[in-house]
């Protein structure tokens, strides 16, 4: 059995070691909860002001 996860284009930056192994057609043994990647939207989110921190003056 297999699970496949598909992320939208440019939504995730997958960890480099996982991508590098895959490019060598080598499977990587992983466990539940290990880091897979990071959202590429993070930077964008940080640049935007958080509404929760805004106050009406």
């Amino acid at each position: 059995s297999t699970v496949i996860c598909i992320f939208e284009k440019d939504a995730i930056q997958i960890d480099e070691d996982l991508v590098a192994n895959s490019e060598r057609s080598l499977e990587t043994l992983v466990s539940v909860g290990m880091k897979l990647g990071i959202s590429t939207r993070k930077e964008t989110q940080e640049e935007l002001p958080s509404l929760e921190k805004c106050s009406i003056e």
Partner: protein
Amino acid sequence: GGGDDDAPEPSFLSRFRRRLHRRRNPGSLTVDAPLDFAGIARIEIISAEMQFKDRWLACLSLGERTYKTVISDQTDKPEWKSEKKVLLEKHGPHIARISVFETNRLSKNNFVGYCEIDLLEVLNKDSEDNIEVIHLLDPSSSDKTVGSLTISCYVEDPIETEKSFARRVLAVVDYNEDGKLSYSEFSDLINAFGNRVAARKKEELFNQADKNGDGVVDMDELATLLAIQQEKESLISSCPVCGETLEKLNRINAVIHLTLCFDEGTGNQIMTGGFLTDKQASYGWMFKLSEWAHFSSYDVGLNSGSSASHILVIDRRTKRLVEELIDGKIVMSMRAIYQSKVGLILIDTGAKEILQNLSEKQGRQMNSLESAKDIPKFLEFFKDQIRLDEIKYPIEHFKTFNEFFIRELKPGARPIAHEDDGNIAVCAADSRLMAFKSVDDSLRLWIKGRKFSIQGLLGVGLSSEAFMHGSLVIFRLAPQDYHRFHLPVSGVIESFLEIPGCLYTVNPIAVNSKYCNVFTENKRTVSIISTKEFGKVAFVAIGATMVGSMTFVRKQGDYVHKGDEFGYFSFGG
């Protein structure tokens, strides 16, 4: 046949006939008689002359097996030229029955005529011409003929059988398909034959064959070597197709077993049908289409000396290459079935149903109380790969194998990376992972099935536009793994879509085959998770041979946190 003019020995046919005569006179039986009466008869149903025009089909039955030809065109002189090899055993059946059916829109498979042939009588005739014309009898009146049938029938020379078998099996291990075997390819083959003595001297055997010392051996040379070697000392201890131990059989019977088993397995013969009966030889073959299928008999495989083959994976935690245990016979079976056109023909002609039935049957078995006795064997086989200390309950807690299979782990056994940071996605399963920045990369490097597409994977019910050029991560679970899958991201479960399908293996051997499209043809459930950090994420759980049952513990509309349990795979259809 065996004899040319220079050869000191008589031809194979005359040797065979002498044996027949000897057997027919009980007083002349010799000590080698038990060896005499096994051979492979090659029967070809060539054509028929019938009394009216229709579309015709012929069936050959011998013992408990029935094989059928293709259906002819509309004619009164059908031509089939269909061939089947059958085993003639010392005390086995030797009266073959050929039945002819008409088939059309009004009468489907209407039985029109038949004949019976004593294969021993046919083979015993002095004529070198093997072609026979036989009357077809009316089923309702045996003195009335309804047409005639032309067949050809002869017995293969055992040496030729051995050589031809060797050529075919060697083709399976010729991984780079250059028509030559490297030492490592040769080594895999000897390992799969399960002969420990031969395994120790495979270098010697290889050098014997490698006449010019260039480090490779061509197919014919190696086939000859194998045939000669078989004459002296059997190299083959177990059948690489069905795994049966062959040591108790004499040499020729072992080769006959291998030849027929291989023929059944690859659907190599023109006449089909044998594998659709209850007592099909191909059952053994089909059963090994997946590494999952074999776990209950791992001990048998090891005891019979079959050497395990290995798949290399890299352990992310230790950064070491590790070898994954998988039986060599299974690797060979899967290669032959999933990576060849003939194998796929077999899949098209009934294997889908067999895989489905096998999986359902296995599910029932694994839910029985009796199945719990397999747990210790399983743990012993995978003792380095299953950590008992992290399982939530003691082994005695599991009343069936399936309960053990979907075992839970103790809280904290799988720490979640950056648990409170929704921007970090995590792995969804204990598995062997492949990750690609784009779907195109995955197609270039890993998924070779020609019909794979994201649309096909997700199903027509879901708009997959956003995922077309997305990133793709594959988590492949092996038999020994913890079988619950978890959420890789936090968000809301937007939808579930169940897609029915087949239960092919999801082993890399099938995924890497251009003829197979396991991800888009297998049974699966697609869920879409809507997240703040990653947009939409598609989560596809795919069933496989034996392990085709998927259960979800979350439902549509639930808010889920990354690392939460999402569901599990278990034995069943």
